[in-house]
């Protein structure tokens, strides 16, 4: 149902971000447990005006085979939400502040604060860059420009459908949108590669097997679907002007024909057409009148009718449910660890969503909210389902089907999340942040401008984040090599290899980050007055929680058993062990 953006919560209270009644409701409900939530929501069900997150919880609950796990602890929640919305664990101070806060609305407040932070935009940039470009090497569009284009788009809250339209229609003529050409340009303008990836990434259909024949295993994927998509690009190519600048150019002629390699048939032809979409009327021109700018040596042709230009509006139109379902499914997978349709690029009738009404609801609500990604992620983060613990008091989670969401799923950290989290935990990030801030502060002119009003302050924070990211991002190289998949392929599932372990065991990188210096983790810990404080600082910084009694005792005893001169080494061993642990490796 394409509903209006709801503004009233279950108690009829108007919500505002970060304050008020919703948080109170949540707080009360957490105490009452899962069943109470369902009962409450059901009792006050007025479906049209309930917040989306409540309706999500209802639909998930309706299919649960058994009792759900209780909510995650504050430690678990703060780590999870930071990783999911900012791509990195919280700092020690942020963790401590959150865990120790008595504010009953703190979870919602934190969600809102993170969504408003520059780190959110960065996280979205990294997430979508990986999805769309799959670590392909930079060829025609510099990575830095593309990254900034994405980051700025997400920071500004650009509607997702608009972002996709820009990416699919950029041809280089608008200077501001030149980086958006990367999707096409850095695939070399290869028609088949572009076709396959648009099907996968924007429609949730991997049509590769339908290139040579109707898909042998999936009845819904036909060869005409593949070529209908390809036909948007068959007249397009990369054009380089005399100044060696790249553009995308279209011609006015060229047809697409295909035939199945299995069948002895006449070749068929297709105009540009989305799967099962309406047959378009293509305009006809008299010979010699097809172009606004005719092709000539060194001249980029501009036809009166461009096939490629039709893709963006058609793909993102209200008629294309598959476009909406694909993106909400992927965002759901990002937050919950598994798509409602899994795998996320194989939507078809024999691979239905685990929660069909839920997927439709999300798709329609997202469109109704003008494809506001922040809004959707907020709703997802506010669900009880999302905030559920990943362990269960009475049932072995491994006996539960993952799509039941009775427990939260473990999500392996992406190479970027892992790398940034190690940098954060060891204290390298804080030191770089301080350095960047010192530079800005030391530049009195700049500091004055940035401090002068709120808008500028905000831009100043963004500026500092960008400089920080540019400086430190190159340090992630080894993580990407060891934990990431081969370029040009979708990110592989969790991979544990002996090389990763050797990297942590013997590699110089993590050791150098751990080595005490300035006010990094080990330097800070060493300066603390007693073993217990030291142990707590290390646990809180690396695992975003305090040690339980057993852990604390064991760790403190271990420290105290060693001579004082060995304390720094002992602290390093403890910190290393936590960084190398499975608990750190996973988002739980």
């Amino acid at each position, binding site marked *: 149902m394409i509903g209006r953006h709801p503004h009233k919560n279950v108690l009829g209270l108007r919500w505002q971000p970060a304050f008020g009644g919703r948080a109170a409701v949540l707080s009360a409900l957490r105490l009452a447990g899962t069943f109470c939530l369902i009962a409450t929501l059901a009792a006050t069900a007025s479906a049209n005006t309930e917040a989306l997150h409540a309706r999500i919880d209802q639909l998930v609950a309706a299919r649960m085979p058994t009792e759900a796990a209780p909510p995650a602890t504050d430690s678990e929640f703060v780590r999870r939400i930071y990783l999911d919305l900012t791509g990195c664990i919280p700092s020690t101070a942020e963790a401590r502040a959150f865990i120790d806060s008595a504010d009953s609305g703190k979870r919602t407040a934190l969600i809102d604060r993170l969504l408003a932070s520059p780190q959110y935009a960065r996280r979205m940039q990294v997430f979508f860059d990986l999805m769309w470009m799959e670590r392909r090497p930079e060829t025609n569009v510099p990575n830095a420009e593309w990254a900034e284009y994405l980051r700025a788009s997400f920071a500004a809250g650009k509607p997702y459908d608009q972002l996709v339209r820009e990416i699919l229609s950029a041809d280089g003529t608008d200077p501001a949108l030149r980086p958006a050409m990367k999707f096409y340009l850095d695939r070399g303008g290869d028609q088949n590669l572009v076709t396959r990836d648009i099907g996968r990434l924007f429609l949730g259909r991997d049509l590769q097997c339908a290139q040579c024949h109707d898909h042998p295993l999936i009845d819904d994927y036909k060869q005409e679907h593949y070529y209908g998509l390809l036909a948007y690009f068959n007249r397009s190519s990369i054009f380089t002007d005399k100044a060696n600048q790249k553009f995308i150019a279209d011609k006015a002629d060229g047809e697409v024909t295909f035939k199945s390699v299995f069948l002895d048939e006449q070749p068929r032809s297709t105009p540009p057409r989305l799967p099962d979409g309406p047959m378009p009327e293509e305009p006809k021109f008299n010979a010699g009148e097809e172009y606004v700018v005719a092709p000539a040596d060194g001249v980029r042709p501009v036809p009166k009718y461009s096939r490629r230009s039709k893709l963006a509006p058609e793909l993102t139109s209200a008629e294309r449910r598959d476009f909406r379902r694909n993106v909400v499914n992927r965002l759901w997978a990002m937050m919950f660890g598994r798509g409602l349709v899994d795998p996320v690029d194989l939507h078809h009738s024999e691979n239905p969503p685990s929660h069909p009404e839920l997927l439709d609801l999300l798709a329609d609500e997202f469109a109704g909210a003008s494809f506001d990604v922040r809004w959707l992620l907020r709703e997802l983060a506010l669900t009880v389902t999302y905030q559920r613990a990943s362990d269960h008091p009475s049932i072995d989670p491994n006996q539960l089907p993952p799509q039941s969401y009775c427990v939260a799923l473990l999500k392996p950290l992406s190479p970027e999340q892992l790398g940034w989290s190690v940098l954060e935990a060891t204290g390298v990030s804080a030191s770089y942040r301080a350095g960047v801030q010192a530079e800005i502060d030391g530049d009195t002119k700049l500091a004055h401008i940035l401090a002068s009003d709120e808008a500028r302050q905000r831009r100043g924070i963004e500026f500092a984040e960008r400089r920080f990211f540019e400086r430190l991002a190159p340090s992630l190289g080894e993580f990407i090599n060891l934990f990431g998949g081969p370029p040009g392929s979708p990110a592989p599932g969790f991979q544990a290899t002996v090389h990763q372990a050797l990297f942590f*065991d013997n590699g110089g990188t993590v050791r150098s980050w751990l080595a005490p210096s300035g006010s990094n983790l080990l330097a800070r810990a060493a300066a603390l007055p007693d073993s217990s404080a030291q142990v707590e600082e290390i646990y809180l910084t690396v695992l975003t929680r305090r040690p339980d009694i057993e852990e604390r005792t064991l760790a403190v005893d271990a420290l105290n058993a060693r001579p004082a001169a060995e304390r720094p080494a002992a602290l390093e061993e403890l910190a290393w062990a*936590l960084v190398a642990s499975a608990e750190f490796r996973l988002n739980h």
Partner: protein
Amino acid sequence: MKCTYACQTAEHLVARRRFLGLAGASAMAGAGVLASPLGAFVRPAAAAELQSKQKRILMVYLAGGLSQLESWDPKPGTDTGGPFRAIPTSVPGIHISELLPQTARQMHRLTIVRGVNINENDHGRGSYIMHTGRVPDPSNEYPHLGSVAARCLSVENDPLPGYIHITPGGGGGLSSSDAAFLGPRYASVTLGGGQPPQNTVRPDAVTEAADLSRQAMRRRVNDHFARRRRTAETEAYTQTYDQAAELMKRRELFDVTKEPATDAERYGSHDFGRHCLLARRLLENGVTFVKVSHSNYDTHNENFDFHLEQLGEFDQAFSTLVADLADRGLWDSTLLVVNSEFGRTPGINQYCGRDHWGTAWSVVLGGTGVKLGGAYGATNHNGTEVKDRQVNGAQLFHTYLQAVGLDSTETFDVSGRPLPMADPAFGPIKELLA
């Protein structure tokens, strides 16, 4: 060892089969006691044989596409034959290119399959077919022969990687996609430039005591977490540290300079020579699958000069390796496969080169489980097509598996889907099996 994993994950199912196959067997690595998780995969007749000897596979991969006309199936004096002539071998009636004089003397230990047609001329796709026995299908990745061997032939608790790939140049690392659904434990470990895997030496700054202490701490933290949440993923992750420790203990295995200098001379003082000697070392020490790559054979330009140079290196090192494996008693428990992603065109192009050609070319086998000392199949007089006993990549894959005593018609159970070990549309080349 009660299994508590989610029943539908790939790691679990593969691990469970392993466990069932293990019941009652001792887990001593390399002691000749078979603790192999073969269970359902082993042909009954071979089980007894396997009890006595662990099988291993050596693949020599000539990257870029070796020209069969300049090696295993020469056609001198024809319009396609090129300038090199043919020489007799240790098997009467079998001739190979004059570029392989030392290998010719080992022909009685080898078999040439001359009728290979994979109907594919693309490097990536040809390589995929020759490594997996499958036509590329993007919705289903299949594991390499090396990963299947590592999975099915390795002794349980084997600390060494089961699939090692020695390449000229390049960094080391791993190719996680090789193992596909079998999981990264069976992925190839690449020794780039024949160097040991990276990070296998504990740095001086970390004393052994410190390492023991931090590993013990790490294990305690993992156990603590596992009480709350234990999955195939956490198991896989924590297990890699144990594997790392074992690998480090056996690091010397990767040091080819530990082999006698006289051996190094016999193999040739070039990279391929050293890599073949390293392969011998690894195989002797129980590594299940070793692949040695030699590069590059993609001779679109000046095919004859390039093959002269590359095969000059290849001939000496390869023939020495074959002879050594035989002399040292490894030949009847090691399968040898010599292949490329495809062959080269009979037609000589205008740069005196040959282009990609998957239609009529050769693969060489040796060692255990295959009939030796012959040529199976044939091409026509000038090599433009197969005229006798054509075979494809799937059939070859089946044959490799059968040769080492595996039942290639078996399936892996992955998330409830049965995935056949080899392409079920084909079977092994029975006449080739010993």
